[in-house]
């Protein structure tokens, strides 16, 4: 195998901290649907996943980037080694970790799944797109399809025998999914003929699996316009015989693949359905016009997964930059800046490099803790589902509320942090000799697909803030307030808790502002300010989880000797919390101040005034 060198790095001690200390796995593991799970198993699985990632997936990351995908004989050829890695991934069972047991998976809690996802994604983002989409598509079928369809498709897709895609985007339907023009014609036998073109389809074709199951959004003849008229179809690349084996080709043609800035190992395809009027599809379930709610099942999970992609890449960028900074000698210590003969020091000794590294560390840890908070709510929801309505609704509400934050803040920060990691390297970071430039290129797509980050921001202010009569948002703010109340005057975090208080007041002020605007002629301020609100609320949420971790770490470090390596670890957590609270939290109030200026220049400026060219 023409495998390259692994560059992926993770700090397992930190992963163990979030999973076993900050969001105790033992609270959910071993109970209800998570029966059979415990700390020891989770730890073994994380270690084994990390080993798999660094030995199998990591060495292919740069290979996939340099080689990219090619079209050979009308089909996609994936980079060297991907096919073998696919096989090994499913043999090792890593992708089946959270798959329901009835489909041959292990039914793991989400809080463990997200960490495994971080590891596989961080070692090779482009590769992980294929199994990620196969899993997502299988989930939709598992949740929404008929029993026969589940049998026929879901199990094979969950277990890597077949793959899957989600086909929403069309040339004239990107963010505006409702404009989809792909059509479906019902046949006398109850199946449908599909006709249309989908673009940007990740994994739309590949040579990893013998079949690909496309989930296609299309409009049945005579259905209403807009999203309400869309239905979701199962459209396999190869028809499936009655005995479940792979049959003849379906009329799905690969038209071309895109040449991209990043994730080059992931094939982004233009697919033509029904060029020869012979593209067969099955409706997912039995009811037409359910396409959007069905697709949203997948989309929520996929949005969380995109946030994890951001976290994963940023985390490895940080740890690589840290290694480099310890190694690269340049300049003298600033304490000796006047002495030309002072010894050269590693760049980690320079205050500004340390500032960048701590920013990377704190933000990466904050993103991880935010993902874990979401996952923890999801696990508790599943434990309670059907039992305690109020508590279950609370946990589900937090999952809904945090999803756009994880997706948008996670992805925006990832790209920015990869830039910072490059900056730590200096010129070397800009070169292909080091992994961070690829990380930056790979990370850019995260803010675009699965709904651009503005779509996330509008989801937050337009839907999530008012969801359940505002109860989800109020519950979140209530949790922040309770934390502040509990730790007011904390000996180590007193000042930071105060900063959290002012930031949370500011967030509430802006939320109220939205309500005011939406009911007046100032409604135009809502989309203009939505991204800023998402940023402010994300920063508040991340500070909250980091301070929570900091308080815990402060308690734990006290009991340890000065040389215990855990002591340095906990001290690092205290520093992350201090840094983020002092350097980022105050920005929240500023965001709100800026929003309250109610600036409308972007909408008042005429098109002609943008440039005279």
């Amino acid at each position, binding site marked *: *195998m023409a495998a390259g060198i692994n560059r992926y790095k993770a700090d397992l001690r930190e992963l163990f901290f979030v999973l076993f200390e900050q969001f105790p796995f033992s609270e959910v593991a071993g109970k209800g649907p998570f029966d059979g799970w415990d700390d020891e198993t989770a730890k*073994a*699985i994380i270690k*084994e996943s990390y080993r798999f990632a660094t030995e199998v997936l990591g060495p292919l990351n740069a290979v996939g980037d340099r080689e990219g995908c090619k079209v050979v004989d009308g089909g996609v050829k994936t980079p060297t080694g991907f096919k073998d890695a696919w096989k090994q991934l499913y*043999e*090792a*069972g890593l992708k*089946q970790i959270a798959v329901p047991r009835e489909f041959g998976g*292990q039914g793991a809690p989400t809080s463990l799944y997200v960490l495994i996802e971080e590891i596989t994604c961080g070692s090779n983002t482009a590769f992980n797109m294929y199994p990620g989409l196969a899993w997502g598509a299988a989930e939709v079928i598992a949740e929404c399809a008929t029993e026969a369809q589940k049998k026929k498709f879901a199990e094979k897709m969950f277990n890597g025998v077949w793959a899957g895609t989600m086909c929403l985007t069309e040339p004239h339907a990107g963010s505006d999914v409702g404009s989809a023009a792909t059509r479906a014609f019902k046949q006398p036998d109850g199946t449908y003929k599909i006709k249309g073109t989908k673009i940007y389809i990740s994994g739309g074709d590949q040579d990893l699996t013998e079949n690909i199951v496309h989930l296609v959004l299309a409009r049945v003849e005579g259905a209403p316009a807009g999203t309400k008229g869309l239905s979701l179809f199962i459209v396999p690349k190869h028809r499936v015989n009655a005995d479940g084996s792979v049959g003849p080709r379906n009329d799905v043609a690969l038209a071309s693949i895109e040449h991209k800035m990043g994730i080059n190992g992931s094939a982004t395809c233009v697919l033509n359905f029904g060029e020869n009027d012979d593209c067969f599809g099955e409706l997912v379930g039995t009811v037409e016009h359910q396409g959007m709610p069905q697709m949203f099942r997948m989309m929520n999970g996929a949005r969380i997964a995109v946030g994890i992609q951001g976290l994963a890449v940023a985390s490895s960028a940080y740890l690589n930059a840290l290694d480099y900074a310890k190694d690269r000698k340049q300049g003298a210590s600033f304490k000796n800046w006047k002495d030309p003969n002072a010894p050269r020091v590693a760049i980690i000794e320079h205050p500004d490099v340390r500032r960048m590294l701590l920013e990377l560390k704190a933000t990466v840890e904050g993103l991880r803790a935010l993902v874990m908070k979401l996952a923890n709510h999801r696990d508790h929801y599943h434990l309670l589902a059907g039992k305690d309505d109020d508590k279950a609704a609370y946990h589900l509400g937090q999952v809904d509320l945090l999803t756009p934050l994880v997706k948008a803040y996670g992805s925006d920060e990832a790209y920015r942090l990869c830039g910072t990691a490059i900056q730590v390297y200096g010129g070397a970071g800009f070169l292909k000799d080091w992994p961070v430039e690829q990380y930056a290129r790979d990370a850019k797509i995260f803010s675009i697909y699965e709904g651009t980050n503005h779509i996330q921001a509008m989801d937050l202010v337009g839907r999530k803030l008012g969801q359940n009569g505002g109860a989800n948002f109020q519950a979140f703010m209530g949790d922040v307030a309770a934390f502040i109340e509990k730790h007011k005057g904390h000996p180590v975090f007193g000042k930071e808790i105060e900063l959290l208080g002012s930031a949370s007041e500011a967030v509430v002020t802006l939320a109220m502002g939205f309500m005011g605007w939406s009911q007046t002629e100032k409604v135009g301020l809502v989309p203009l300010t939505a991204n800023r609100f998402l940023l402010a609320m994300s920063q508040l949420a991340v500070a909250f989880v980091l301070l929570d971790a900091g308080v815990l770490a402060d308690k734990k470090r006290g009991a340890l000797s000065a040389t*215990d390596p855990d002591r340095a670890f906990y001290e690092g957590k205290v520093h992350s919390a201090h840094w983020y609270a002092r350097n980022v939290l105050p920005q929240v109030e500023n965001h709100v101040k800026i929003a309250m200026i109610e600036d409308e220049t972007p909408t008042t400026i005429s098109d002609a005034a943008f440039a005279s060219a």
Partner: protein
Amino acid sequence: MPLKILVTAKRVEDSESKIKVNPAGTGIVLEGLKFKINPFDEIAIEEALRLTAKHGGEVVVVSIGGKEVVEQLRSPALAMGANRAIWVNHVGPMDQLGIAACLQKICEKEKPDLCILGKQAIDDDQGQVGSYLAEALGWSQATFASKEESLESEAEKSKAPAIKLSADGKSVTVVREVDGGLQTIEATLPAVATTELRLNQPRYASLPGIMKAKTKPLEEVTPASLGVDMTPHITVVKMTHPPARKAGIKVADVPALMDKLKNEARAI
């Protein structure tokens, strides 16, 4: 013929950890170190699993040490597919004779057809246990087991065992790595084999495997219960880092370099 195979799983320092000698020079600093299974043992387990996959039988894995070795017994050893584990609970110093004596007693009780051990452990690189064990049991030994094909070969891809069982099930053929080449020997069973790095590419412990490992039988014994005295015959007098390299010097020109090479370094 089903085979009963005994394999070992030593817990060793992860080669990626930075190893430091303690200030007293009596051993290494254990705090903050990461541990893993000895890679040679992992290869032994893989070979045993391939053999039992082909011929049927059972793989029993043994580790000697404090309670922390249970981690390596469960994962990867049992998680890879070994059927059950024996943990010899022993805290404190031990040497190769003690280790071989424990294994001997276990073999006398378990009566395996074949023992497969790593040819050495990557922590102290002693490479003695396999041969001691064969000698103590009076069994044939096949050390440095390797294979003719490369690790990229079809044979390896098909996960075929490299140690070959004879048709009558009475012996195994082993390709040994020796200086400058390979030697093929036949060893009568019961036998002890030790593994080279090129014997196979071990599988990853699968996730379902890790889940199943929790419920697989793990028997705890002690050297005393086996009737073994672990008092070492070897004492470590002192442990030091290899001497640091001295700083280089600059020479003025090629003749000066030649002079130094000839007269100081006596290299030419």
